[in-house]
């Protein structure tokens, strides 16, 4: 064999050399794992290869910025399935391998070439390659101590740096930034959050929710600077971070600069395959790319907006666990030759300190809001309406509100905005 290094194998045995796997899933991610699992649940009998470029068994990412960072759960808790599961389901795991190029045929089969020198012939190909952190462009961004948080290795690096750290600067006031900032503050670090834009989590929530989190995080001790411009990341003289200087001339001491300023979809393999790419790899309602055979699922996929009632032809790329799962199910049906609609309403969650945010639906395009508050219990909900009908909700420590809106949206129903303004009224009773 011409293999230079042997990639680590787990799960079931790979097909014999020269024999194609039934489905090669590139990306051992939430969506990749779900695709394999859903296919088996649907009775797909071909061999499946699930290949990832990280040196870990497939794991869940959400806890990396929260419970895992805080040492509340160990790495074993993040693992999706036992090794026995993969063996019993005839799924081969390949870790630590990066696919560099693909030779594809018009029938959807082909051969993928790994960085190790190994080749992977397949009958069908699925790309669940996700996204990578957008890098900070500032002088000093390459210094030791400037870190990102996407993968287990990123979290392990952060945990390694944490004990010797007293001060952290978090760049980006989005979900990842605020979750990690809250975690690090709970670990006794002084944390400053720098948000370039006019408000926190500007891409995912409305102004009222942004304002709520700003106030509550400041109450809990986070130093949050809105509209902050980084001029330079400061060097301690040995290539390690010493702090940050802002455009207004102020300086902040830090031994860690954690950057969370969004992600870039990993479209390179899609481009190499000649697939249509536009803010992700473009797919149809069946998760098929423009060649009609390659399956693309999850963060990397630009898909028709699956929300009932969404404007016809509108497209969306969703970065969430829920989407990874539901989109993978659609793709699994597609591979089985069935056409099934995307199930359910997109939802998201973010746990920050003692605040548990749950979002149901997509608030884009709302024209009015209703606020429900119970400060004594720390509950706060924003309901979003368009043309008098509910389209989404941000609910903090208010799971009943979240659940009610999710149920209303799934049933194609609304919630009366006037009655909903009374926080003592259960939203569930207003679904109509």
């Amino acid at each position: 064999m011409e293999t230079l290094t042997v990639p680590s194998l787990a799960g079931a045995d790979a097909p014999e050399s020269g024999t194609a796997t039934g489905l090669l899933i590139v990306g051992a991610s939430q969506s990749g794992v779900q695709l394999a699992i859903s296919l088996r649940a649907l009775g797909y009998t071909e061999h499946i290869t699930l290949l990832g470029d990280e040196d870990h068994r497939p794991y869940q990412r959400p806890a990396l910025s929260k419970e895992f960072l805080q040492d509340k759960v160990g790495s074993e808790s993040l693992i999706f399935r036992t090794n026995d599961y993969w063996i019993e389901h005839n799924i081969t795991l390949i870790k630590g391998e990066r696919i560099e190029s693909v030779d594809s045929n018009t029938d959807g089969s082909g051969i993928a070439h790994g960085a190790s020198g190994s080749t992977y012939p397949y009958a069908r190909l699925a790309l669940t390659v996700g996204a990578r952190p957008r890098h900070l462009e500032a002088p000093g961004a390459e210094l030791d101590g400037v870190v990102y948080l996407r993968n287990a290795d990123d979290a392990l690096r952060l945990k390694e740096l944490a004990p010797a750290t007293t001060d952290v600067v978090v760049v980006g006031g989005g979900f990842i930034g605020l979750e990690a900032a809250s975690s690090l503050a709970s670990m006794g670090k002084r944390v400053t959050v720098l948000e370039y834009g006019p408000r926190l989590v500007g891409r995912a929530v409305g102004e009222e929710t942004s304002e709520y989190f700003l106030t509550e995080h400041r109450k809990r001790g986070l130093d949050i600077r809105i509209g902050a411009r980084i001029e330079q990341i400061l060097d301690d003289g040995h290539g390690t971070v010493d702090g940050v200087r802002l455009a207004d001339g102020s300086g902040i001491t830090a031994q860690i600069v954690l950057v969370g300023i969004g992600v870039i979809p990993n479209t390179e393999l899609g481009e190499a395959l000649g697939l249509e790419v536009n803010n992700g790899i473009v797919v149809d309602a069946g998760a098929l790319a423009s060649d009609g055979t390659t399956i693309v699922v999850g963060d990397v996929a630009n898909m028709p907006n699956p929300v009932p009632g969404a404007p016809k032809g509108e497209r969306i790329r969703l970065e969430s666990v829920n989407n990874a799962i539901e989109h993978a199910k659609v793709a699994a049906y597609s591979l089985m030759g069935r056409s099934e609609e995307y199930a359910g309403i997109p939802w998201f969650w973010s746990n920050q300190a003692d605040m548990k945010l749950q979002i149901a639906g997509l608030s884009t395009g709302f024209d009015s809001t209703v606020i429900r508050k119970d400060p004594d219990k720390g509950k706060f909900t924003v309901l979003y309406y368009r043309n008098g009908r509910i389209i989404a909700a941000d609910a903090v420590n208010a799971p009943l509100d979240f659940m009610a809106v999710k149920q209303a949206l799934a049933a194609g129903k609304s919630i009366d905005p006037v009655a909903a303004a009374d926080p003592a009224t259960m939203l569930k009773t207003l679904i109509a």
Partner: protein
Amino acid sequence: MPTVHFTDAAGATTTINANTGDSVMETAVRNGVTAIVAECGGSLSCATCHVFVAESDLPTLEPMGEMEDEMLYGTAVDREDNSRLSCQLRMTEGQDLHVTTPETQV
């Protein structure tokens, strides 16, 4: 070693040896008990790991918190007096737990 018996809505039972300290949800998901979905991975955000606990086992469990109590009102199959979210049930040494899974979680 603790043990969990999962009985599905059709009456079929799967018995799994658990690790002490793991949640019932983790035990189910890692071993491919598909009646437990657990989208959120145990962060008490999704209510898709709903189980009905055998009456005789209920007194052996830690009482539920307020958040779990509220989340249980949003399960796909309506809650009953013996409902719990399995991500909140940690297995203790020697425990022998019997749960029934609902027909659907989503």
